[in-house]
């Protein structure tokens, strides 16, 4: 079974530019999460999709961040315009469901996208 994949692995952009990150969850996982780790800080939740719907976007820093999950499969996270403080590692994770408990609630992470805004 393929794991969570993310693209690109690295991105270097200038302040003011736009970047789009992509996440492909494990097949059959309804839940998709975005997290971010800014250098030296803890990994922080950004938002959660259940299929194509945003379940919780309480962690999104501001309106420069836009996440989508059209069709309930892969997701994109767009940062427009990028600022210096957006630099960090963006992780995506997926899980099967929240109801059953146990293994189906476990979140599996992708390798992350390292974003550097200059």
């Amino acid at each position: 079974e393929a794991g969570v994949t993310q693209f690109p692995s690295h991105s270097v952009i200038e302040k003011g530019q736009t970047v789009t990150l992509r996440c492909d969850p494990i097949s059959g996982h309804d839940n998709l999460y975005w997290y971010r780790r800014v250098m030296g800080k803890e990994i922080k939740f950004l938002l959660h999709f259940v299929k194509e719907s945003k379940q919780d976007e309480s962690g999104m820093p501001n309106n420069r961040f836009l996440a989508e999950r059209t069709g309930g499969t892969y997701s994109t996270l767009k940062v427009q315009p990028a600022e210096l403080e957006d630099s960090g590692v963006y992780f995506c994770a997926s899980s099967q469901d929240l109801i059953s408990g146990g293994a189906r609630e476990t979140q599996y992470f992708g390798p992350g996208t390292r974003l550097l805004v200059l």
Partner: protein
Amino acid sequence: AQSVSQHNHHVILSEAASLELGCNYSYGGTVNLFWYVQYPGQHLQLLLKYFSGDPLVKGIKGFEAEFIKSKFSFNLRKPSVQWSDTAEYFCAVNAKGGNKLVFGAGTILRVKS
């Protein structure tokens, strides 16, 4: 709001030494608890998890963790570390049936061969 505290940011051990990484969480309800590990150049991997039942859980590569509810703790242990255990370790928690994971700041473990 939930929070997770990991006691050590950097730990250096010699091979065969015993390991214990502390993790305390703050949350009033029932939680799921996790330890994730990130080896150099690799992505976050699940080391072990606690959902319910026996508070002593065993994970991969000889790791174990004990959930002590009265202390809000979920410390990670390994009796004898190896050089290959060099990695960053993250404790995380979420509410039962909840979604977002709340992570600790991470502990970088370096094992000297």
